[in-house]
């Protein structure tokens, strides 16, 4: 645009946007928020013919300070625990009206792994035609970083602090994907903000399913995880490359795909960037034991989901892997 041209109006700019964007800029998320990025990417893939039900949480709060809203899709927030049931009702209504509009449910890990799990199980069991997306930032961030059942083992939060007697959270991260798989729904997957093309592909797949689909998206929270604002993507990518966040797809509960790892990194590469694991790098035998424990959890994932690439790939390089998996928007 040359200086003598009049500036485009907001409406004009929106018309020139290369892709549909369900979540606009101007919301109140923190700098570097993984969930905001994930939600934007997901809504781009969802497209405009959808309705969103949103559980209570950061995403609800930072997008809708009335009278403003960052949503360009019809959107409803009811309460914390009921998003899957509200979405079920919306879907039943659209079915009764013979409309094709897709219902999408959004929840954080608190609303999905914990308080909303019963409603989610009901929605999956009844196989409602709903895509449920869980943005997993591994703690109750909206209330100020309290542990959830999704918080990783040994991570420090305000309710699982590290101290003389404790090395952070004592319990394991809940294996939600296995619980989802046991419902034998048509499609479920894990994804992450670090591989956006993969994320979009999985969302598009979920949108095409006639029935329940579930995607959990690893979404770094700089405030809660204690990493630099600019490092979210790197942290999220390391979660994948260490085996701590296996990238898998399941159909009817059976594993049908996994992102293979050709350059498996030690878990310490991932943990070292985050203050929530800082206590594990102290000169303390219990800290060392927990580090070993976390490495074993990653090794377990690599084994169970067969993440280790079996043969060398002539295209294999860190750079290519990133491109293929969606580091650039060419795939």
């Amino acid at each position, binding site marked *: 645009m040359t200086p003598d041209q009049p500036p485009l109006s907001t409406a004009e700019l929106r018309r020139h946007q290369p892709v549909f964007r369900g979540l606009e800029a101007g919301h109140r998320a923190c700098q570097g928020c993984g969930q905001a990025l994930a939600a934007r990417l997901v809504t781009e893939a969802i497209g405009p013919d959808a309705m969103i039900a949103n559980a209570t949480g950061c995403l609800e709060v930072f997008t809708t*300070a009335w009278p403003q809203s960052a949503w360009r899709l019809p959107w409803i927030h009811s*309460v914390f625990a*009921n998003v899957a049931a509200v979405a079920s009702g919306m879907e039943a209504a659209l079915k*009764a009206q013979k409309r094709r509009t897709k219902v999408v449910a959004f929840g954080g890990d608190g609303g999905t792994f914990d308080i909303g799990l019963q409603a989610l199980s009901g929605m999956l069991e009844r196989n409602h035609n709903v895509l449920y997306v869980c943005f997993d930032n591994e703690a109750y961030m909206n209330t100020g970083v309290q542990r959830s059942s999704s918080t990783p083992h040994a991570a420090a939060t305000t309710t699982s602090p590290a101290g003389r007697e404790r090395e952070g959270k004592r319990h394991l991260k809940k294996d939600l994907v296995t619980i989802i798989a046991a419902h034998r729904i048509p499609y479920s997957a894990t994804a992450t903000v670090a591989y956006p093309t993969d994320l979009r592909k999985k969302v598009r797949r979920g949108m095409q399913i006639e029935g329940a689909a579930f995607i959990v998206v690893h979404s770094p929270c700089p405030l809660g995880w204690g990493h630099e604002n600019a490092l979210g993507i790197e942290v999220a990518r390391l979660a994948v490359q260490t085996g701590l966040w296996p990238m898998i797809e399941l159909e009817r509960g059976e594993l049908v795909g996994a992102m293979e790892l050709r350059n498996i990194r030690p878990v310490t590469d991932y943990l070292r960037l985050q203050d929530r694991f800082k206590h594990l790098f102290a000169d303390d035998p219990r800290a060392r034991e927990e580090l070993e424990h976390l490495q074993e959890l990653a090794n377990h994932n690599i084994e169970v989901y067969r993440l280790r690439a079996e043969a060398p790939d002539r295209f294999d390089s860190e750079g290519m892997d990133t491109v293929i998996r969606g580091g650039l928007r060419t795939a």
Partner: protein
Amino acid sequence: MAQPLEGSQAMARAVALCRPQVVAAYPITPQTHIVENLAKLIADGALACELVSVESEFSAASVALGAAVAGSRAYTATSSQGLLLMTEVLFNIAGLRVPLVLTCANRAVGAPVSVWNDHQDSMAVRDAGWVQLYCADNQEAVDTTIHAFRIAERCELPVMVCVDGFTLTHTLEPLELPTQEQVDAFLGPYAFSRALDPANPLSMGTLLSPEFFPEIRHAHHRALLNAQDEIIATDRAWQNISGRSTGGLLSVEGPQEARLAILTIGSILGTLAEAQAESHDRTPAKLIKLRAFRPFPVDALKQECAGLDDLIVLERAVSPGGGGIIAAEVRAALSELSRPPRVHSYAIGLGGRDVPMTVYPQLLAAAQAATPSRFAVFDLQPAKLAETDR
């Protein structure tokens, strides 16, 4: 033509005549027959409707909410513990001003566990922001169910139809059911001005700062007060079609000159009316049926109670540590009169204890007390209690 129907069956058929597009419910005694009957109507193809058999009442209310905002007429039914499990969602539905209808088959709340009738459940959600209409008999339950959808959709408020568990839900009566054409003409198709639509994306249930919150609460309160006119108008409109009135906000029977009245809610009215008709005690007494508890009809009540010396409020719930719930509100309303009647406050029939016709003369006698009862359980049997609990 009247036909013999169980209350629940009649209510289910009334709901079906309103053509709900989504029904969600979770079974609980004594609500179960209503939902079973609806399920059968759907299974038989008599009602085209999505039945969502949810995993809890919390989800039943949530499914109904989701369906209503997505543009479908929605219905649910519950009782007692189920209603309390819904509580968070009930407040949310009302706060969002979503029109839908819930039948509460009134039942006591545990502990101690009781499956029998009183009004503790719906009274506990008094402040959720719903319209609450109480039915005196099953014909009223049928008619009120049909009214409820119209009131809800015209006022953008959820409506709770309260019917006494077992006493109404499980009792066979000769009942008139309207025709489909009558109900279609009365209701019309479901329309909700804020239904979610991708072509016109709205955000509902957003975060609200203190800058706006009190105004929203005030607007909700006004909406409920204004619903009084709609409740009356709906009753009249239905009377024009069906020939039956359920009394709008409240109704009064008995001699105009009576200085004594008994105000009650729900199905006890029939017992008292029959007892009065058969009583040897000819003390003139009015029977006031409170149909709308929310909105609370202060003006109508003042009008009906002006000139009374004594008013007995007979209710089927208690606010422990407080006393009578309806009585407290009646006293507050009547304090605006220049010469308010003495208000005698009693709970009766808690946990399903039978209310026999013999209470009528006992009530007339109680009204003669030198000091009106601040609150008491009328049918208390003190001998069953430890000395310290009497």
